[in-house]
């Protein structure tokens, strides 16, 4: 009986510890990740963007303007505006609006980074146009 009781107490303690770990943050670990990451400047990204925009002006005629898509993402990405600009399902804005709250703009920020990469590699964000998935880079 004592052993059963002790086991139950141990399980309860472990559960409590696990649950406690869920909602407590190790800020020093996050500090370390940020300190060890390579800093990328938004200004440098926009500098490259402007240069690419000028060199690809003819490609944007009659199609989605890649620079506009990226700028829309930067400022209104949390609302999924850039996705509608590039073509997607009619309700995409709803998902972005909700998940911005929960994910605090991370998904649109990842969109921003992958669109920059596409612009550098392909010269446009065409690969993401018409994508109906919420995670267009998934």
């Amino acid at each position: 009986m004592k052993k059963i009781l002790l086991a139950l107490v141990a399980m309860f303690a472990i559960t409590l510890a696990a649950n406690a770990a869920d909602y407590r943050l190790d800020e020093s670990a996050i500090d370390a990740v940020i300190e060890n990451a390579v800093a990328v400047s938004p200004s440098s990204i926009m500098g490259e963007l402007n240069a690419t925009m000028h060199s690809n002006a003819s490609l944007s005629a009659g199609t989605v303007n890649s620079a506009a898509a990226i700028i829309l993402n930067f400022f209104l990405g949390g609302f999924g505006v850039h996705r509608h600009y590039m073509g997607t399902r009619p309700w995409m804005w709803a998902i972005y609006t909700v998940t911005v709250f929960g994910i605090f703009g991370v998904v649109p920020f990842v969109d921003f980074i992958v669109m920059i990469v596409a612009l550098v590699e392909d010269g446009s964000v065409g690969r993401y146009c018409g994508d109906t998935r919420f995670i267009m880079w998934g």
Partner: protein
Amino acid sequence: MAARNFILFLSLAVCLAAPAAAQRRVSASAQVQTVMDGKVTTVTKEVYCSANGRLVTVFHSPELSYIISNPKGEVQIYRPSAKEVISEVKEDFSDRDDLLYLFLTGRVDDMELAGYGYKLVSSKQEEGGIIRKAYRCDEPGRIPRVELVTENFLPIYLAYIDGGGKVVSKTWFTQYLKLPRFFLPARVTNVSYTTSRDSVITRTTYSDVKVDPDSPLFDFQVPADARLVPLNKRK
């Protein structure tokens, strides 16, 4: 006599409190750091939030820009360098769930989840003033489960969980600042799990928080000579 005095006191308190609440404004600088694939980008902005929900956000990088929004969904983006303004009105662009606005107006009980169709399904009280609440939403397009943990009635943890039980994102609210009439987390950290192995970390740090400062930016208006650019214009 005592009852009459109490009613008088209560009426006075309400009269004094109401205009004070309506006049509340808060400004802050925010640094947003995002880490992905070993790279970190830092964006800083200044936010001017009024109790009526009007939000003016000023970005200095990559270029000076102003974003004005309100709970009605009216959004304007003004770029002084180009003298251009993008303007849109859509109820879903409402900033009613902006963090600063939520804490300023004290609507942190459920972090506005009810407004998005989430219903409280369970609430458990634990030691140390901890309350764990579980929410559920069955509407299409919503992440079905949310867990909200509060400590002494202030949110400290928020997690979104998909239908398969996998955590999509976690957010921690820490380093609370005690301000006149409300509390504000000085640091908000989010981890989103993009794949089974990768994640994106976003950390927002608020500083230089001022309550009811005298700043004209709270009432910033786009100049009348700014050129209006339609949101859905394609070049």
